């Protein structure tokens, strides 16, 4: 059982108080966000509400009620998930003062399970980015090296967990935005199957790719949170009416004999040498643990980033059309006509990356270009999904790859070259395009920078991914 699991048991039994852990979390956040190099993981913290919620959990337990399977767990929420009582800015000037009148299903379910929401975390604007440098409110630092990015777009959530400020955090993953920052910050990050977790209350970026994900220190911690928030939701028609298996039970099932595929396309010389070495060592550990590790091929991998670029931009241009200064959010002052309201609001409310994706998405959908770009991107998506399908049908249980081609890069290194930034998601976008579950866990270091290994599984088979991840975690001894 993880340290968090033991503490949950202690809170449930009364041996420990949720209020104590929450108080410690809030003190740690306060210390980390002050001083000469503030981490800037958080955009908003509500100490009073968090302490009140923790006291309520303790009170429920003391009265003989059910405090919940996540009793007293401190939780940070990425600021593109709607919450009551805390603003939802999406890291954008467009929603700088926005307070949602409703709460995301994922957040609501975790609160009902006894988790304590302490604050909202920083992100690349509207989830668009891989470094958190595109936040309108300034970047987050990587806790391992303050000159490097934490990854993105869920950089704040990853940094908050890595720095020990909270037990777990929610993120969103459209092309790797949970897994890539998890790899850069040395924590576990999981994106479930598309449709496993309700997107109600997740501010839409690319609706066919977005999923709510979880970050934690241990595989078991991620499994606990996923168990509590997953499942059908009448408010999200894309949340599948499938029961959620017992994921914690799956962690305890022996992984010996499972088949792990390592795609040759993910271990080329373009990958940082130390990342390749850590992946090779981790594969050896899996073999030593009795898993059957074999080389496989996913031949359409090179089309993944181009396809993702197009599809994500198209869907973003559609989803962000709602920000027009009329109903809510920022409205450009002194706009002298209706069209000026739209144009000025969107020029000043959005940052560079959001505007870039909106214009790109508009272009590739326009007459004469739709077939050349969007239709081809969808074709690539289908090929990529079929590659995975073929490998899984051949008997592979999970696929193992580096999470990212490199460890965390330095601030400013890629922000001026958009495509170079997209390439940092080269190994993560495939799972979003295919809709399959994927998890990143720490597998060692490159110097003092964490390296992440990624496991991907069949649709709806989070259990297999978690099982192999837990086995690898035990083999490597990478528990914090």
């Amino acid at each position, binding site marked *: 059982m993880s340290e968090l699991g033991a503490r949950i048991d202690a809170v449930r039994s009364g041996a420990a108080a949720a209020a104590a852990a929450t108080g410690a979390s809030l003190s740690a956040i306060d210390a980390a966000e002050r001083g000469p190099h503030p981490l800037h993981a958080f955009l908003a913290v509500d100490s009073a509400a968090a302490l009140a919620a923790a006291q309520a959990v303790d009170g429920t337990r003391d009265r003989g009620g059910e405090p919940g399977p996540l009793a007293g767990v401190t939780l940070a929420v990425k600021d593109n998930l709607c919450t009551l009582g805390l603003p939802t800015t999406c890291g954008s000037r467009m929603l700088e003062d926005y307070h949602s009148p409703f709460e995301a299903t994922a957040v609501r379910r975790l609160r009902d399970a006894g988790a304590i929401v302490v604050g909202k975390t920083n992100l690349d604007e509207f989830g668009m980015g891989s470094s958190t440098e595109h936040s309108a409110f300034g970047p987050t630092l990587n806790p391992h090296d303050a000159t490097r990015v934490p990854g993105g777009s869920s950089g704040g959530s990853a940094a908050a967990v890595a720095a020990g400020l909270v037990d777990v955090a929610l993120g969103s993953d459209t092309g790797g935005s949970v897994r890539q920052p998890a790899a850069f910050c040395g924590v576990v990050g999981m994106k479930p199957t598309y449709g496993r977790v309700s997107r109600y209350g997740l501010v839409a970026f690319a609706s066919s790719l977005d999923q709510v994900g979880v970050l934690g220190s241990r595989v078991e911690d991620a499994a606990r949170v996923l168990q509590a928030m997953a499942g059908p939701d*009448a408010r999200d028609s894309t949340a599948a*009416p499938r029961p959620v298996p017992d994921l914690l039970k799956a962690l305890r099932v022996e992984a010996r004999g499972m088949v792990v595929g390592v795609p040759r396309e993910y271990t080329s010389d373009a990958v940082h040498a130390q990342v390749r070495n850590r992946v090779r060592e981790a594969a050896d550990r899996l073999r030593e643990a009795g898993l059957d590790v074999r080389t496989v091929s996913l031949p359409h991998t090179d089309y993944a980033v181009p396809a993702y*670029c197009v599809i994500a931009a198209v869907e973003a241009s559609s989803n962000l059309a709602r920000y027009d200064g009329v109903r809510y959010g920022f409205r450009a002052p002194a706009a002298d006509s209706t069209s000026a309201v739209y*144009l000025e609001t969107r020029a000043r409310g959005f940052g560079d990356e959001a*505007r870039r994706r909106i214009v790109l998405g*508009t272009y590739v959908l326009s007459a004469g270009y739709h077939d050349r770009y969007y239709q081809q991107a969808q074709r690539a*998506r289908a090929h990529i999904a079929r590659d995975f*399908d073929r490998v899984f049908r051949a008997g592979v249980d999970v696929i193992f790859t580096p999470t990212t081609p490199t460890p965390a890069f330095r601030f400013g290194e890629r922000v001026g070259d958009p*495509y170079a930034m997209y390439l940092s998601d080269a190994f993560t976008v495939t799972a979003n395009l295919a809709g399959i579950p994927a998890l990143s866990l720490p597998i060692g270091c490159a110097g003092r920078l964490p390296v992440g290994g990624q496991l991907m599984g069949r*649709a709806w088979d989070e259990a297999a991914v978690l099982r192999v991840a837990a086995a690898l975690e035990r083999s490597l001894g990478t528990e914090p």
Partner: protein
Amino acid sequence: MAELASVRLTGPEVERLRTELAAILDHVAVLSELSGDGAVGPDHPPTAPLRDDVEAPDPLQVPLSELAPTLVDGFFTVPRIAALDDDAADRSTP
């Protein structure tokens, strides 16, 4: 394109975006190599499930009336755009 996307850009921004988008489109041009109908197996990607064709409860988490600061005759009200006051005045002039 920026006008079609309802985003006003300055001259320098147009030039910068033109360069950046050209570079991105150069990279995504590789998609033209692909052929085939891209048919996939039954497990991928997860298709949107169809629900039964029956009336479902209101999916809103809170009543409609609580989704905006003010509601008049069933319509959400939003701040007026100043220029529209001038337009309304012009139309009312005989």
